[in-house]
């Protein structure tokens, strides 16, 4: 990210926000300012989530965003563990495991809140009951270090990764940590069965936690091929000048829509709503697309020219209900095959 770009984004945001201020919003702004902060549990890559927080703080001086970034699965674990001990910290929860929202809604831990404009989002980005909306989307891809692997030899399909010549050359993130990967595993189980992962494990991939981490591992050359990971993370390291190439396997790429919602116990409910409006605004969604390389549900957002459109990709979708039901199975079997 360049500073100039951030400044331009900021200026645009400030302009839009000042134009939109109506008396009702003033009252809410006052209430939010009194609360002073919003606590955001998020699985968005740290550098990206920090950027969102800084943009919000610049647009609404006096309201701090406390970013607690970790993997989706850890977010759910923390949240439930905290509630069990009657600790209420989180205002806004954003993970990449759509199954989590089935569970959270069931347990009445979310409030219904629809920020302006989300009604125009495509169906895949909307909860039919109006509790949560897709803040961003990523697809899972293969990526390789082009300094080490010539393009002609690079794997093109998920099945190509099973070739024994990639033994010791792969890295995979972990479904016990990352919701992007939980979704990925389920999508590929639908496609190729559990046997696929059993065979993949034969190639002894290096195990990392976050779906962000494979991009760094591939860029450094520690393992030249990523067997998965959010495409935006590879796009970001490539933009920074690393020799990383992204492959969209033709069998299809798992689409991960990451929802965000306000908790029913939010200690800062006004700030939470203000923040939620902000993150679904066209301006912020455009920032996510431009500088972070993410896909979003906002129909007016444009994508960088070097990104394929979602409509051009063969997307593999998973049902959130099934994801929720099979969550433990996914983790257990993965550990069974990969060891840890």
């Amino acid at each position, binding site marked *: 990210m360049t500073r100039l770009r951030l400044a331009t984004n900021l200026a645009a945001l400030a302009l839009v926000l000042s134009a939109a201020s109506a008396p009702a919003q003033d009252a809410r702004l006052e209430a939010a300012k009194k609360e002073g902060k919003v606590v955001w549990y998020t699985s968005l890559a*740290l550098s990206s989530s*920090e950027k969102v927080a800084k943009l919000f703080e610049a647009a609404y001086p006096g309201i701090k965003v406390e970013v*607690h*970034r970790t993997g989706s699965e850890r977010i759910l674990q923390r949240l439930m563990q905290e509630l069990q001990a009657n600790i209420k910290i989180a205002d806004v929860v954003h993970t990449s495991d759509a199954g989590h929202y089935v569970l959270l809604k069931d347990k009445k831990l979310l409030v219904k809140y629809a920020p302006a404009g989300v009604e125009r989002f495509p169906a895949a980005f909307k909860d039919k009951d109006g509790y949560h909306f897709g803040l961003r989307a990523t697809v899972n891809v293969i990526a390789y270090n082009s300094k080490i692997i010539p393009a002609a030899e690079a794997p093109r399909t998920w099945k190509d990764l099973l070739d024994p010549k990639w033994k010791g050359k792969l890295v995979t993130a972990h479904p*016990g*940590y990352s919701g992007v990967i939980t979704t990925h595993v389920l999508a590929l189980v639908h496609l190729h069965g559990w046997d696929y992962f059993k065979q993949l494990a034969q190639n002894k991939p290096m195990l990392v*936690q976050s779906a962000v981490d494979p991009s760094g591992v591939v860029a450094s050359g520690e393992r030249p091929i990523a067997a998965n990971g959010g495409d935006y993370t590879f796009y970001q390291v490539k933009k920074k000048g690393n020799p990383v190439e992204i492959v969209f396997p033709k069998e299809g790429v798992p689409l991960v829509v990451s929802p965000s919602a306000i908790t029913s116990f939010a200690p800062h409910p006004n700030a939470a709503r203000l923040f939620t409006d902000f993150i679904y605004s066209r301006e912020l969604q455009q920032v996510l697309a431009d500088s972070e390389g993410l896909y979003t549900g906002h129909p007016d957002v444009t994508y960088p020219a070097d990104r394929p459109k979602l409509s051009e990709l063969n997307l593999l979708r998973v049902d959130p209900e099934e994801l929720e039901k099979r969550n433990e199975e996914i983790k257990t079997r993965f550990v069974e095959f990969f060891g840890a």
Partner: protein
Amino acid sequence: MSVSAEHGVTLAHYARVFADPQLQKALWNTVVLAFWSGLLSVAIGAPMAWLSARTDLPWSRVIRSLIMASFVTPPFLGAFAWVMLAGPNAGYLNKLYRSLTGAEGPLLNIFTMPGLIFVVAIYTFPYVYIMIANTLGLIASDLEEAASILGASRFRVALTITLPMVAPAILSGFILSVLQALALFGSPAILALPAGFHTITTQIWALFHYPPKVEMAAAFSVPLLLATALLLLVQKRLLGRRGYASVGGKGAERRAIPLGPWRYPALLGCLAVLGCAVFLPYGILAKAAFSRAWAQPLTWENFTLENWSFTFLYSSTQGAIVNTLELGVLTACVGAGLAALLAYVTNRKLIVGHQLLAFLALAPIVIPGTVLAVALFIAYTRPPFLLYGTLWILFIAYLTKEMPVGYSQSDATFRGIHPELEEAGRILGAGRLRVLREITAPLAKSGIIATWCFIFIGVIRELSASIILFTPNTKVMSVVMFDLKEEGQFGAIAVLGIFMLAMTFAIVALMQTLLGKDVLGQRPSASAPG
């Protein structure tokens, strides 16, 4: 908790734990790790102790301070640095090896059991070193000289005379390093998980993942607890029968054994070990802190200060630094105060049951940090004591963990202050409190300051208990570093690591200045692992 169920008591959790092949593997891995890193620690620590305590090794003061640097380096930070040094493909040493030899494969792979053992040992050998160096410092050299006069070579003397005399210290050092390795969380989490294997501590941590299996974590803690208790019992027995006539007190004459032509090779050996433990890791951390991409050469294009601004502007970092300092100061003050009080009471036998007090103060040493955290989590996440989510639960964990270190240190301090001095004061008409204030306290001051510093250093680097007990508002620095590690943020971790090391060295330097001597070397052997 590990035997509780919905209806009464059950052993089902145990049955499940020990029937599960995953968990069995974790148990076995822990045994392998602990045994070999104990052995390697002795293989490194014992010769270095002998060289620096008994011979005319050049630069022995420098070597000693560098060993202390290795001692205070958080093991998880060392493990992290070694990922950058010896990752099989991108690791610096492997790149160097390939460019020198033209080989294709890696020279080293840190993501293996031997790699893990190596990294654990280079940060554990100081425990063996201190124990043996202290013992060697007490042995008179007459026996050795007698053997020399009778024509035995230097190494024969070392092997047949010196070695048997320090054997109990060596064994005891071995046990201490085994205990360290058993209790470690960070190094296995950083090096074993990517390779697809668990140790007991990482497995306990994994059992907390959603949906949490707290009962199984509790059951799985028991073998770790038993192993620790058993090893300490053995160690106590060993030290208990240390009755060598030659292990005299002060005043016994000691002359440095000339190493002759071996002086410089020996020095080189020591420097090689310290290169692995200190120079290389610190160097790579410094480089990563200023690099855009850690694996690329540090050129102008790759140079950046962004890691620094990013790390310190991140709201979790700021909160964690404040939390860490608060907890460090609070635990050190309360811990040092409590330890001094306990040591005074037990040394002067002021109340009935003082032996029990001493036992209680030392007892937590058998509890690895992860196990302690599981116990505290179970105890304090439900009424009447809802401490989970507050800094207090971390405070209790740290205080419990550091008490054995604090107590041993204070105990040594009060042992060194003869009661006669106090009695003289009493005879001259002073009350107990006045004696305490005017005679005992000034004499004990330096010992108490040292205790304070040990506890503070122990707290700021703690990871194994914190990783289970933290909530977003109670993150500490080590937890933030671990979080960053999961996202592969090498630059930011390097920055925080350097910050943590700087804090540690500032405290050590402060202590050296205040006390005017090398206190770390006199750290008592009882120190909480993990």
